């Protein structure tokens, strides 16, 4: 029975590179996947592209390719990545140049069509999934709009001979579905098969999170050599069974527990995992240890909804933050006094704050008033944090300044003040009918061409 090996090379934009290089050299992989696009990343990348039309792709693209390309002479693995972010065309051109310099004759394809910003005015009536308000209420604050594409652009690029496929926004698991659909030449009407490829993609898309990352809990769930975490490689068989492994000699942990945690990660209704090409059903899945490897089987699928989730990035004001620490006897009460001082100061200065939040780090910053379920410990130190949402940058900066002023004017022994201002780009979502989005390929046959 035919099988394909796919390795995970990155689970987020800034991930480590060494595990990917190890998988290229020792993993005998057919494909390597770099998933580098969080919900908001593309909106920030769009701002970079506006400032410089040659930018707007993942800032680590060149760094990664400098390390990866020289290895491809001996290990010709194909690469699929969403490092194109807001500018897959520029990213593909960059990689093409780098490959040429390395003496590699590689076909580099860009998948386009996710960027629907220019046509957004046509969709003003669509309700935002978060609030129900119409899209047009975001007005001119919108900076980006990207539909989540499915796997078709990737599988078509591979079928046309691409060695490297660079996308912008595609649904993360489709980075894996794409090569599997191309390799096994299945129909996109085969919902069960698609569902199995989606599970494969879902398990690889966060890379080290299935091999012991985001898992270790000393004494409860120990993970060996977390500093040397091996990334997963899966073998996908034509019957849809998938076998996960990590390379011998790497750190980390791969067992039923790590796989189950990642299988359910970010999943809402496990019977209805919505993706552009299929509604995947996880409820029939079994996870079974097989020696050092873990076998996952039993996913199914139902026909797609015909709607594409589309992320709309919009400017959403500023967040001003400040922090300061207090230690020793009575430190919690001094931190609380600092909070009282700040609240008075914000009022005296007439700061226009849309929302303000105070935390005591070590006490209630993670669980707020729900932290009462834990017995209060004797604290050697606490750190007060304030964060406030503002319309303008100046007001946001005043938050941190007022925290720093506590050094001299606040309670006894305040130390380590830090402040920060963040320009906020938030993300809202709408559902676009699939026929509104045309997937295009670029870089294989000269001119861009559309695929169905």
């Amino acid at each position, binding site marked *: 029975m035919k099988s394909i090996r796919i390795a995970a090379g990155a689970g987020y934009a800034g991930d480590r590179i060494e595990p990917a290089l190890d998988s290229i050299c020792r993993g005998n992989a057919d494909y390597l996947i770099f998933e580098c696009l969080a919900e908001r990343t593309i909106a920030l990348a769009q701002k970079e592209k506006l400032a410089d039309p040659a930018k707007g792709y993942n800032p680590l693209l060149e760094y990664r390719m400098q390390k990866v390309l020289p290895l491809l002479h001996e290990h010709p693995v194909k690469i699929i990545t969403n490092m194109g972010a807001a500018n897959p065309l520029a990213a593909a051109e960059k990689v093409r140049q780098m490959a040429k310099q390395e003496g590699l004759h590689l076909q580099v394809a860009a998948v386009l069509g996710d960027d629907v910003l220019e046509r957004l005015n046509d969709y003003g009536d669509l309700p935002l999934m978060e609030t129900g308000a119409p899209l047009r209420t975001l007005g001119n604050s919108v900076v980006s709009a990207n539909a989540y594409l499915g796997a078709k652009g990737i599988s078509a690029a591979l079928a046309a001979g691409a060695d490297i496929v660079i996308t912008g926004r595609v649904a993360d698991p489709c980075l894996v579905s794409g090569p599997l659909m191309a390799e096994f030449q299945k129909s996109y009407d085969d919902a069960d098969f698609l569902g199995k490829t989606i599970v494969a993609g879902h398990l690889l898309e966060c890379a080290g999170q299935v091999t012991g990352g985001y898992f270790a809990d000393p004494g409860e769930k120990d993970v060996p050599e977390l500093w040397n975490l091996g990334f997963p490689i899966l073998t996908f068989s034509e019957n849809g069974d998938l076998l996960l492994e990590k390379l011998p000699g790497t750190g980390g942990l791969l067992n039923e527990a790590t796989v*189950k945690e990642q299988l359910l*990660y970010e*999943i809402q209704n496990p019977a209805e995992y919505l993706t552009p090409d299929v509604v995947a059903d996880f409820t029939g899945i079994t996870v079974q240890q097989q020696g050092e490897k873990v076998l996952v089987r039993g996913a199914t699928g139902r026909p797609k909804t015909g709607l594409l989730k589309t992320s709309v990035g919009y400017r959403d004001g500023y967040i001003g933050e400040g922090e300061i620490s207090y230690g020793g006897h009575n430190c919690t009460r001094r931190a609380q006094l600092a909070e009282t001082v700040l609240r008075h100061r914000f009022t005296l200065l007439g700061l226009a704050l849309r929302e303000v939040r105070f935390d005591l780090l070590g006490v209630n910053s*993670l669980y707020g008033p729900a932290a009462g379920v834990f017995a209060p410990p004797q604290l050697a130190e606490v750190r007060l944090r304030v964060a406030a949402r503002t319309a303008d940058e100046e007001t946001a900066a005043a938050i941190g300044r007022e925290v720093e002023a506590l050094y001299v004017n606040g309670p006894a022994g305040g130390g380590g003040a830090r402040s920060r201002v963040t320009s906020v780009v*938030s993300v809202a979502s709408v559902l676009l009918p699939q026929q509104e989005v045309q997937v295009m390929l670029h870089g294989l046959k000269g001119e861009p061409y559309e695929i169905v």
Partner: protein
Amino acid sequence: MKLFELAHSRTGDKGNISTISVIANHAGDYETLQKAVTAEKVLALFAPLGATKAERYELPKLAALNFVLTGTLGGGVTRSLALDAHGKALSGLLLELEV
């Protein structure tokens, strides 16, 4: 007994929604979890954090439950004022549940 004695857990986020799995350490304890970790109890635990809704999904083949919480993330990772804007630490609260 605390839930962490029977199960492990991982938190994820999708927009303003938090997803938290509860996975039995030993598959034989799944029925105990099913009885003890109800959506009502989980909602009550997270209500002080702003939770307005808790849905529970059952995965007997994985000996796991999956919870979907609305209201705990302060607008989601892109705009929340919280230090842990993803809510990555929320599984640590769920595992404190008395079962």
